[in-house]
C-alpha cells in the first residue's frame, strides 16, 4: 500500500492535500468541515488588519475555464478572531494562518498578532491580483518587497512561514529565491491569475461586483504546474503546489513538478468538500498501479537529472 503522509516544515500531514486560503475557512467550524472532507491541512481565509466587507456579489463565477473571483478579502480583521482561532485542536489537522497587508508596517502588525493565535504555520500573501491596495496591485510582488516582508514576518513568527506568490509576474523565480533567502520555510505557488473580467452582454455590465477577478481552477493548472516546476529548480524549501488541482492525477502532476504538498481551492466547487478524500484515493490508486511506495519517490520526477 502506498504512503500518502508527508512532513511539511516539521508538520505531520496525513496526506498532502491542503485547503487553499479563501475557500470556506472563515471559521474554526468551516475549517473542520474541510478536514472532515479529507484535507491533510487547512488554510484560513486571509486576515487583514481592518474589517473588510468585501465586494458586492456576484463575487465568484464559474465558466468553462474554471473559476473567477473578486471576493475582496472580506474578513473580520485580525483583532476580532481571538475566540475563533485560539484553540484549533478540534479541527483535527494542522491549521495554516494567512495574512494579507498593504505594506511592510501592516505585515509587522499582522505577524505579531498572528503569533498570539494558534496556527501551525503562517502564510504570507503577497500575490492577490485583483484587490486594490493589496498583493500585486500594491507592488508587493518584487524581490525587494518579498524579501523585506518575509524577513519581518519570520522575525515575529514562532511557526513556519510560507510565502504565497503570484503567477502573474515575470521573474517569479527571483521572488521565490528572495523569500528563501529571507528565511521562508516554504513557498505556496500560486495565487490566482489574471485578473480577468466577464461581461454580461444583455445588461452590458461586468458581472463580478468587483468587476475584475482572479482566475483559478482549470485554466490556472498548466500555469501553476509551470510555476512550481521553475521554482523547484531554484529553491530548496518545499513548495505547496496550488492551482487547478481537482483530481489525484492533477495532484501527482504537481508533485512531479516538484511540489511537496498540493493546495486545493476551486476543486471544492467541482467535486464538493470531500474533494480532498477523492484526490487522495485517486493518488493512491495511481501509485498502487505504478508501484510507487511514497510521494518522495516521485517528487520533482519531471525534472531532468
Amino acid at each position, binding site marked *: 500500500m502506498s504512503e500518502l503522509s508527508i512532513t511539511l516544515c516539521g508538520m505531520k500531514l496525513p496526506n498532502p492535500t491542503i485547503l487553499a486560503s479563501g475557500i470556506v475557512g472563515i471559521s474554526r467550524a468551516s475549517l473542520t468541515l474541510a478536514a472532515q472532507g479529507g484535507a491533510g491541512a487547512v488554510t484560513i481565509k486571509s486576515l487583514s488588519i481592518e474589517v473588510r466587507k*468585501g465586494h458586492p456579489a456576484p463575487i*465568484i463565477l464559474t465558466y468553462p475555464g474554471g473559476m473567477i473571483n473578486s471576493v475582496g478579502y472580506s474578513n473580520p480583521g485580525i483583532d476580532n478572531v481571538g475566540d475563533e482561532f485560539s484553540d484549533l485542536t478540534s479541527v483535527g489537522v494542522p491549521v495554516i494562518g494567512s495574512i494579507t497587508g498593504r505594506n511592510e508596517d501592516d505585515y509587522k502588525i499582522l505577524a505579531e498578532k498572528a503569533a498570539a493565535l494558534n496556527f501551525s504555520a503562517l502564510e504570507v500573501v503577497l500575490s492577490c491580483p485583483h484587490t486594490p491596495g493589496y498583493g500585486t496591485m500594491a507592488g508587493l510582488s518584487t524581490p525587494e518587497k518579498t524579501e523585506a516582508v518575509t524577513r519581518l514576518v519570520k522575525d515575529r513568527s514562532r511557526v513556519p512561514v510560507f510565502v504565497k506568490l503570484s503567477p502573474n509576474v515575470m521573474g517569479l523565480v527571483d521572488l521565490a529565491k528572495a523569500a528563501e533567502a529571507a528565511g521562508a520555510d516554504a513557498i505556496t505557488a500560486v495565487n490566482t491569475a489574471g485578473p480577468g473580467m466577464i461581461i454580461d452582454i444583455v445588461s452590458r455590465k461586468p458581472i463580478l461586483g468587483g468587476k475584475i477577478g482572479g482566475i483559478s481552477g482549470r485554466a490556472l493548472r498548466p500555469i501553476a504546474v509551470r510555476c512550481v516546476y521553475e521554482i523547484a529548480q531554484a529553491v530548496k524549501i518545499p513548495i505547496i503546489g496550488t492551482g487547478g488541482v481537482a483530481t489525484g492525477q492533477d495532484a501527482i502532476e504537481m508533485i512531479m513538478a516538484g511540489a511537496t504538498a498540493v493546495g486545493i481551492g476551486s476543486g471544492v466547487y467541482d467535486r464538493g*468538500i470531500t474533494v480532498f478524500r477523492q484526490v487522495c484515493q485517486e493518488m493512491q490508486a495511481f501509485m498502487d498501479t505504478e508501484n510507487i511506495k511514497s510521494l518522495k519517490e516521485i517528487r520533482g520526477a519531471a525534472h531532468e537529472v
Partner: protein
Amino acid sequence: MKFELPITVRISQVIEEANGIKSFLLPCQLKAKPGQFCMIWLPGIDAKPVGISYQTKDHIGVTVCAVGPWSKKVCELKEGDLLGVLGPYGNAFQLEGKTVVLVGGGYGTASLMLLAEEALSQKLTATMIIGAKTEAQLLYRKRVATLGLGAIYTTDDGSFGERGTTADALARILKNQKVDSVYVCGPERMEKKVAELCRDSKVRSYISLERQMKCGFGVCGACSLDDSGKRVCVEGTIFPGEEVLQMKEFGQYHRDSSATKHHF
C-alpha cells in the same frame, strides 16, 4: 456542465403582494425544487439570495421585501427591467406523511409556496400558517385562496386573522390533530419556537435557515454554521428541526459580510 453565470432576463410581470413586498416574474427555466433559492443580480449593483416563490414551465418568480439598499432598488423595478438569475441553489423540502403544516413568517413564506403547490398536487392534507406584523404585510392571500389551500393567518396586532404568532397557531393545531410533518421558514426567533414546539410534540420539522450568503454554491464560506461548519447554501438551507436545535448559533448569532458575529 453547469456554470455559475447569471441568466439576465427582462421582468415579465410585477405583482404587488403586500405593503413594500413585490413579486417579480422572470422568464427563465430553473427546474427548481420546493425550498430552493436563487441569487438575484441587480446588474452593476449587487446580488442577494431569494427564495423561489413561483415556478411555471418557463417562468420563475421571486418575492422581495424592501428593507435595505438592494431590496429597495429591486422593488423600484418595472416590467421590462433587467434582473440576472443564478441558481437554483440549496437542498429541497421533502414532504413526509399525509398531514402537513407549513409555517411561514414574513418573506419566509415565499420559500414555502412551491412546497404548498406540491403538497396539493400530491393530495396531502396541508395547512398553511402565514404570519406578519400587520394585515398590510400578509403575503399571498389571494393566491392561497385560489390554490384552495387551508390557511390560517396571524398578525402581531390582530389586524387580520388571529392575533398572535404563527407558533401560537401551530401549538393549537398540534394539540388538536395528528400532524406528520411541519415545514418552516421565517424569522429565526419564530423558527426556534416552532422547532421547540415540534420537538415537544414529537412531530418531525424541517427548518429553512437564513444566513449571510455571497456565492450560494459552497465556496466563499460566508454561510458556514457553528459548530458543524455546514454551509447553509449547500448542506441547507433546510435542516431537520432536531439538528437545528443542536446548532450552537441557532437563535443566538449570525455573521455579516465580514464574518463578524452579531447576536439576534
